[in-house]
């Protein structure tokens, strides 16, 4: 059985971008031709629902269900919006960049079909400013689609019209949170918003809005073209499709690969990432970005899918693993992450604005050899308070607690050695 890798079929070894001609020569925009004016929006929605596609931005929410909350009767004729979340700033995450730089038209075709399904008439790609090459390629791709009649007024001669814009962000990790992203697009400070109302009903400018991750949207035209059963059959476990998995840290061959969803952690780590660098041993890993809980060597045979990783006490998150090796200090590792989240807090709610810097300070004390025994209790109390969903206005702060809580659980003796020895055992070894 040959591996079906729809998302990366146009990704070349040298990572040069696929242009419109090459994209179409390889079957691109067939989904668009087959759907617009031929399938109804509700046909498309049904296919998406049946496919069991789950959001690849981190939370794994079923995409078809999310879309089904968008009101389809639109008596006022006002705008509906589709937004692609291309903010990719989760520490240790490097998959959306690859998809956009190597195959920009795949994202655009996915977005056109997604917008058609929810009958959005305006679409935005919200992209971080550092993704300069991707921004340029996407702008060129949009222009090429206009010339072809794939975007703009009366797409393929039907009465469906769609305008698409690239919006370059001005920075800050919190812009990736979907309601904060909407605030940023409206020209405001990127503070998250209370839900309800959900963006599907009242989002950008108070109009129905769907926000999806780059990888999620890249899947859509394949699903509509090849069907829900095909998509379901790609997954190895209960989840459907393929997934962009990545590994970074001290492995022989760090990288990002499209594999069937549910591929075991060990296979990704050993067969694709080439195992640990010589002289380094695996101690633990964050399965999907900086705001997921540590797992350890006992979890290597788990399938990388949403439910399996969830049951093990973590989250698949973005699917890009970060490796903790034996020559890297776990306290320093956690401190780097908590300092990051403290810096990136939007400042709206107290537990996050004040609690995260407190945690970062305590971690710094421990790392620098000033740690006291009661600091462990302080951290545990903060984890309980900040980590509880509902105590904060958005998921940034609870996300920050995931590596901290699990780090204290799995590497407790390393924290203790810092406190007992009044210093970092690794720093003395000269590395961190």
């Amino acid at each position, binding site marked *: 059985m040959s591996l079906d890798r729809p998302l990366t079929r146009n990704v070349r070894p040298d990572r040069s971008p696929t242009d419109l001609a090459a994209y179409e020569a390889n079957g691109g925009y067939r989904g668009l031709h087959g759907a617009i004016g031929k399938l109804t929006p509700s046909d498309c929605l049904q296919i998406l629902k049946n496919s069991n596609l789950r959001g690849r931005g981190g939370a794994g929410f079923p995409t078809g269900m999310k879309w089904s909350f968008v009101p389809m009767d639109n008596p006022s004729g006002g705008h509906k919006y589709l937004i692609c979340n291309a903010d990719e700033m989760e520490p240790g995450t490097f998959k959306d960049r690859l998809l956009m730089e190597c195959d920009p038209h795949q994202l655009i075709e996915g977005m056109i079909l997604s917008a058609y399904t929810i009958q959005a008439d305006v679409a935005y790609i919200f992209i971080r400013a550092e993704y300069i090459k991707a921004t340029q390629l996407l702008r060129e791709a949009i222009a090429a689609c206009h010339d072809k009649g794939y975007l703009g007024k009366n797409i393929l001669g039907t009465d469906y019209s769609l305008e698409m814009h690239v919006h370059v962000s001005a920075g800050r990790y919190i812009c990736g949170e979907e309601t904060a992203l909407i605030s940023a697009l409206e*020209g405001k400070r990127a503070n998250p918003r209370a839900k309800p109302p959900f963006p599907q009903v009242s989002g950008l400018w108070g109009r129905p809005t769907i926000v999806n991750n780059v990888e999620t949207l890249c899947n859509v035209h394949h699903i509509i073209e090849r069907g829900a059963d095909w998509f379901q059959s790609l997954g190895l476990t209960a989840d459907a499709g393929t997934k962009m998995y990545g590994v970074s*840290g001290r492995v022989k061959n760090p990288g990002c690969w499209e594999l069937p969803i549910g591929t075991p952690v060990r296979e990704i780590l050993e067969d694709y990432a080439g195992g640990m660098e010589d002289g380094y041993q695996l101690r633990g890993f964050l399965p999907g970005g900086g705001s997921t809980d540590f797992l350890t060597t006992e979890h290597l045979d788990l399938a990388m899918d949403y439910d399996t990783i969830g049951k093990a006490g973590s989250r698949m998150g973005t699917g890009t693993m970060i490796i903790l090796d034996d020559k890297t200090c776990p306290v320093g590792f956690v401190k780097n992450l908590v300092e990051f989240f403290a810096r990136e807090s939007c400042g709206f709610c107290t537990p996050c604005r004040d609690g995260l810097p407190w945690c970062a300070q305590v971690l710094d004390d421990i790392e620098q050899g000033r740690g006291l025994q009661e600091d462990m209790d302080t951290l545990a109390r903060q984890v309980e308070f900040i980590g509880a969903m509902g105590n904060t206005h958005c998921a940034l702060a609870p996300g920050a607690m995931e590596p901290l809580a699990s780090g204290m659980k799995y590497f407790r003796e390393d924290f203790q050695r810092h406190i007992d020895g009044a210093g970092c055992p690794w720093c003395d070894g000269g590395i961190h």
Partner: protein
Amino acid sequence: MSDLIPIVSVAEAALSEEKAALSGLNAVLSEAELTAIDREISHVPYRSAAAIDALKIVQSHRGWVSDENLRAIAHHLEMSAAELEGIATFYNLIFRRPVGNKVILLCNSISCWIKGCDNLQKKVSEQLGVDLGQTTPDNRYTLLPVTCLGACDKAPVMMVGDDLHEDVTEQAVQTLFGDHGGGGE
């Protein structure tokens, strides 16, 4: 009673002075900047919704956004300067202080940290004679930390201007900035 008269005129004078100052603000921004900002305004439901784009436009022309520019943008967008300042200072890529010709964005997130970005930063600082947040005296570079650049498989990474540098070594930093007499010695 008669005391009130001068007070009123003082207030009026202040008002008309403010008006004059505000209309003078229009002259602060160039024709090209105003045209670009107006284009953004035409895409959004109300003027102040173009705030971030307007800041970015002015920054792209001048490298940064001064107090005077900020007041002029706020005036043009019919919003208060204080509100615009709240927006400008929220975003890390809007510069409210002058920056060098090229901004160095050094990733200090987790995968780059594992691969030694702290030592790399020391090396860059030593080579250029600046700490994080500072600009070299010759105005060529400003050194800033940045969130994960989405190139973690090539860690450690940094951007110099628009260019991404991957798998950066201390040797590479030496080569890149070696000719820079930033006063590191």
